[in-house]
């Protein structure tokens, strides 16, 4: 049975719609990420689940209980904020125990739970310190422990890693996932970082301009994007204007060269179709049973583990990603080259 259900939820601020007809069902113990660019309504949706914003229309149900208009302090929903929001006047132990104290839990039980939480976030020795005596990453771990201490029905995380540096971000996101799996807590995670969403989520909700573009597993979102928005927002994507030669055979033309795609549905038989192919699907050289294209090297950019080559194919620019191996033989800028990619790797939008 659905644990958290968001049905037909919309939200407008002064007649400006921010979230439109949002529908989502989340199972118990599931980790769902809301992914999208700034202003797409992901944080507003999260805040409606927390009770900090009231929907203009729609219903939010948690464990089959209508919580749409319930006060935030009566929902038993844990929240972690981007700015940590730790109480500066309280020690870490007092911060973690705050929610239990508010619930009038006996002092000895609060102490036991606080110790459990400090152990969970590996900060056992720091209970008596104040928030300003910790690093950003440590503060956010405390914020997580504080939200978990009350045994919330749902854990909500609003871009919790945005204020941290890259290395800590990667470490902390796997820690969040480990803790979530260990406790089996239903979690909604808001982020604009696609790598973050894809790496820790059971399902990802991609949002654009207040509505859901696609809901799916990370694999579905990345490899089978349903809309142009999802395809271009998640990962790198080449979109090359093409002319359809034969829809039933999946033949299209880029400039003077022919490309074989999978069968073209009627839906994409629009006036200006584009061929979509991810840069990592392209390879140097010629291959049988694949699409082969001739072009010219425009630029070469080193991105650490990856080398990105920008090609000019009959006036259309296409990016190709290669693993940066030591013995990688790179072409020179301006040099004509041939590339290939499998038929299944490209589709029409």
């Amino acid at each position, binding site marked *: 049975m659905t644990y958290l259900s968001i049905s037909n939820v919309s939200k407008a601020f002064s007649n400006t719609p921010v979230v439109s007809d949002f529908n989502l069902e989340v199972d118990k113990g599931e980790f769902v990420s809301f992914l999208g660019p700034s202003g797409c309504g992901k944080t507003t949706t999260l805040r409606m689940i*927390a*009770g*900090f914003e009231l929907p203009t229309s729609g219903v939010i149900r948690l464990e089959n209980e209508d919580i749409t208009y319930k*006060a*935030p*302090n*009566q*929902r*038993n*929903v*844990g*929240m972690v*904020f981007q*700015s*940590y*929001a*730790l*109480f*500066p*006047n*309280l020690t870490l132990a007092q911060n973690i125990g*705050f*929610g239990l104290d*508010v*619930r009038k839990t006996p002092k000895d039980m609060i102490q036991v739970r606080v110790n459990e939480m400090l152990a969970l976030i590996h900060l056992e020795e720091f209970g008596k310190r*104040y*928030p*300003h005596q910790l690093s*950003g990453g440590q503060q956010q771990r405390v*914020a997580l422990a*504080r*939200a978990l201490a*009350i045994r919330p029905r749902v854990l*909500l995380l609003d871009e919790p890693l945005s204020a941290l540096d890259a290395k800590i971000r990667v470490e902390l996101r796997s820690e969040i996932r480990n803790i979530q799996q260990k406790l089996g807590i239903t979690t909604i995670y808001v982020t604009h970082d696609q790598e973050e969403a894809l790496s820790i989520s059971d399902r990802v909700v991609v949002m654009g301009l207040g509505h859901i573009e696609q809901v799916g597993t990370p694999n579905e979102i990345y490899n089978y994007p349903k809309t142009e928005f999802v395809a271009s927002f998640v990962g790198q994507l080449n979109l090359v204007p093409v002319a359809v030669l034969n829809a039933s055979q999946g033949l299209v033309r880029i400039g003077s060269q022919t490309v074989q795609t999978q069968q073209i549905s009627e839906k994409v038989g629009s006036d200006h179709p584009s061929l979509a192919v991810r840069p990592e699907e392209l390879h140097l050289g010629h291959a049988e049973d694949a699409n082969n294209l001739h072009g010219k090297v425009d630029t070469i950019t080193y991105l650490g583990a990856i080398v990105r080559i920008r090609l000019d194919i009959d006036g259309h620019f296409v990016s190709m990603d290669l693993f940066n191996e030591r013995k990688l033989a790179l072409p020179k800028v301006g040099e004509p080259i041939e590339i290939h990619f499998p038929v299944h790797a490209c589709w029409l939008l």
Partner: protein
Amino acid sequence: MKRAFNLRYSLRRFPFWSWLWFILGALYFILPLYATLDFSLRMKRGVISLQAYSSAFSDPQFFQTFLFSNLMALATIFISLVLIVPTCYWIRLRVPAARRIVEFITLMPFVIPAIILVFGLIAIYGAPINIPFTSINLLAPLTESDLGTNLLLAAGYIVLAMPYMYRAVDTGLQAMNMRALTEAAQSLGANWFTIMIRVIFPNLRSALLSGALLTFAIVVGEVTISSFLNRPAFGPYLWLLGQHRSYEPAALAFFSFLLTWAAMGLIQLVSGGQGQVSGAH
């Protein structure tokens, strides 16, 4: 040669202009204070003594008026905090558009003189207040009793101190990321009362102390409202003393300075150990 170079290097590193302005500024404040202190110690001709202080402190009216003003100051601070902190907090949290209007209102005491305020208070609350178009008495004249007049006096003080208290609280709230702290507390199950008492007030500690100190200074030195309401306050006492004595007012003025410094020291002491506000890294 090397020594000369070191001296020149040290001189170049010495922040001459900074020190010059600092010393000039310090002299501007310290010299009048020193002059007051010096004058207050010369009551006995040709001898340095504490005669003026013992004379001022031995006057029973001094303690009576000083105690009264201190109690009024505490009452004013308490009522101001209860009124202003939740108001300012709610405006920042829920109706930020009203901030400009409220700021304008809080500036009114700078524009309306205390004399107008006290006459307004006496005109309205010096007569019985009836329900409009009836003879049903709603409120007896407040000026007929000591308690009622003290209430009017506190109300006048609250208005006079409002610009300082409001700004202190508003600045404190601005610095503490109150929205996130409020939401964090709410998500943990706290109601509004708990949030105010356990989150907002403790984190506004230094701002509240600053506002309280300013309120205290205003109330203790205020003359107009307390004179017209005929209350035994310290301000009118000091003013009257200055009319017919010379050394005692100087002694009491220096004493007031010491009190202010003690209060500022207290603020440093209390706010010094306070944690940094969230997000201020």
